[in-house]
């Protein structure tokens, strides 16, 4: 049969369908969400995805919105190679106007060039490595959450205030661990503290007895650990085995329930710091949590959900203002100052980094991570090691 004969009725049908659409139908605008949806960090990734999804649903329910939004969800598996693949996929798709991207720092770092090359405006929702925004001058990369620079500044200040002066640093040799070592050392020595020794360890190391025996001989008041939960658990447990009686201080990488589950009573009194604040303590936290609960997602928003929500909302606000055009969105994002959001006012510096970033201190009390200010340790009822 002549293909034209087939094509004609098809075209007619399409025409009829188009005409049948309601007159007020909105143009569909696509946003990408990228995060770790499978693997060890999937809990945080799914929380971020749900939160971005919530922002889109709320916007679509708003009759005043000019566009209908669609969230394209992609899984980076917390792996740089997968991350680059999905980033390319999202950025090469011209119907996607902007992206809410990445929780894992290594992945966010790996995709920076891709987004720049393919000119996709992105807002990072969870990765904390400073270099993601500061190692280049690409206009495409922005970030709503704070970085480990802010985190370690707060950490150094709070621990110095407790009267600690002598630290031993153990950090994993990934960018994450090395970054923490660099910034913590910088801030704590500037504040009058002393680093007695620094040990780099591999991210899957099992035995730390050699490092800890050396650390013990240096007699520090605090062991600072820059790294993630699995080896954090091991180091804290082996400190006890070797009789290293120092305060244990960690970074955002250990603020997880698994850290407490892995250690039991040994977790008591461990101090750590994290960018952002618990959802209920954020300016728009109550609103966010209520709306989130209404959707009955099967996973909680986790620590970075509010940031994914804020990033998606910021992008949609910008698109509402300038239209679904990557270049215009990019220009408008460059001028974001004091923009209201559920995580507080957002102001991007010339590197696209949000400069007003909340940092929260945590301490383990009775098997739970408590915000420092709410704990019995801050109130003076319990004491950190050596205080």
């Amino acid at each position, binding site marked *: 049969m002549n293909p034209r004969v087939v094509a004609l009725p098809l075209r007619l049908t399409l025409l009829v369908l188009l005409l049948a659409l309601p007159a007020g139908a909105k143009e569909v605008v696509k946003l990408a969400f990228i995060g770790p949806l499978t*693997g*060890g960090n999937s809990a945080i990734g799914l929380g971020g995805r749900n939160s971005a999804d919530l922002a889109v649903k709320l916007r679509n329910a708003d009759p005043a919105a000019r566009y209908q939004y669609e969230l394209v969800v992609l899984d980076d598996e917390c792996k740089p190679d997968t991350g680059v693949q999905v980033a390319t996929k999202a950025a090469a798709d011209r119907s996607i106007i902007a992206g809410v991207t990445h929780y894992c720092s290594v992945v966010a770092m790996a995709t920076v060039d891709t987004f720049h090359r393919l000119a996709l405006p992105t807002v990072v929702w969870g990765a904390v490595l400073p270099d993601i925004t500061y190692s280049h001058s690409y206009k495409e990369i922005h970030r709503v959450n704070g970085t480990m620079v802010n985190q370690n500044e707060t950490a150094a200040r709070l621990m110095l205030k407790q009267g600690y002066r002598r630290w031993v640093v153990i950090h994993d*040799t990934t960018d994450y661990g090395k970054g923490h070592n660099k910034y913590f050392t910088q801030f704590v020595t500037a504040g009058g503290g002393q680093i007695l*020794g*620094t*040990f*780099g*360890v*591999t991210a*899957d190391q*099992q*035995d730390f*007895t*050699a*490092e800890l*025996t*050396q650390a*013990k*001989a240096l007699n520090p008041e605090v062991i600072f650990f820059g790294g993630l*939960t*699995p080896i954090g*658990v*091991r180091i804290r*447990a*082996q400190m006890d*085995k*070797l*009789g290293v009686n120092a305060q244990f201080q960690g970074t955002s990488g250990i603020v997880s329930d*698994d850290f407490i*589950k*892995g*250690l*039991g009573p040994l977790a008591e009194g461990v101090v750590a710091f994290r960018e952002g604040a618990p959802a209920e303590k954020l300016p728009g936290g109550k609103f966010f949590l209520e709306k989130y609960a209404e959707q009955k997602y099967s996973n909680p928003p986790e620590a970075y959900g509010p940031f994914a929500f804020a990033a998606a909302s910021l992008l949609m606000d910008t698109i509402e203002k300038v239209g679904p055009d990557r270049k215009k969105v990019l220009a408008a994002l460059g001028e974001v100052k004091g923009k209201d959001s559920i995580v507080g006012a957002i102001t991007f510096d010339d590197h696209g980094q949000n400069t007003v970033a909340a940092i929260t201190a945590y301490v383990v009390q009775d098997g739970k991570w408590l915000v420092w200010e709410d704990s019995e340790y801050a109130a003076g009822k319990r004491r950190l090691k050596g205080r």
Partner: protein
Amino acid sequence: MDLLAQYVMNGVMLGLMYALVALGFTLFFGVLNVIQFAHGDVLTAGAFAGLAGYAVAVHAGVEAALPQLLTVALAATLSMALLGAVLGRALVLPLKGAPALNVLLATLMGGTALRECIRLFYPGGSQPQRFPALLPSASWSLGRFTVRLDNLLMLATGVGLILGLSLVLQRTRLGLAIRAVAQDEETARTMGIDFRRVVLLTFAVGSALAAFAGVMNGLYYNEVNFGSGLLLGVIGFSAAVLGGLGNLSGALLGGFLFAGLQTLGAVAMPFASAYKDVFAFGMVILLLAWRPTGLIGERLGERV
């Protein structure tokens, strides 16, 4: 001095674990000339089986540490002995006529499957699990040297186990059969030795040793995770090769030597402990270049 004692103590504990793993590799290689690369993951599975045994014991209302410990040890060793025999039957024996490389690949993949199963199916298996401290935790300090009773107990049990294994091999009919198969399979068969039975029993014994090392690893670090056995397997294998594959004393020597090299790497290179594995494995390469058949070659020692 006290610091040196502490390093030696740490190194000895590590060395014992490595030696137990290396013994398994050497046993398997002895009887069948194969390399069973799932061995490290069998160790992990043993630790998790012990952990499951502990959960069952607690659930059943057993509260005293000793019966709990026995449950853990039995659950781990028996289930892994069985798993070892199954692996031998399913992955190794069918490939007996094939190039040794095929067995290596088959077991490597079997091990990966086992590891992923633990991660996926053990509750919370992708995160580190707390291993209960079931041994008395008394400790004595001398300056900066701390020695713990639980470490001494583990050390004594481990050494006892190794001595027991060597007695079984030297003094019992089973040991005789294993040695006969190791020496010459054909002749052993004609002498009426049930070849398959001996091979499967060897796999069971070697895997039970790995399970014991897994439990010991758990008790020592109070933590296990699905990846524990990966590096331990590689190190145990290196130790067995370093000592001379197929030689029991070689496996022991290799295990303790590797632990010594690692500790030396961490201590002798100040503030560069991230490179201790680079140092230890680098030294193994050098030593193998010097003695390609291992430190105690098959000529010198009696083959298993």
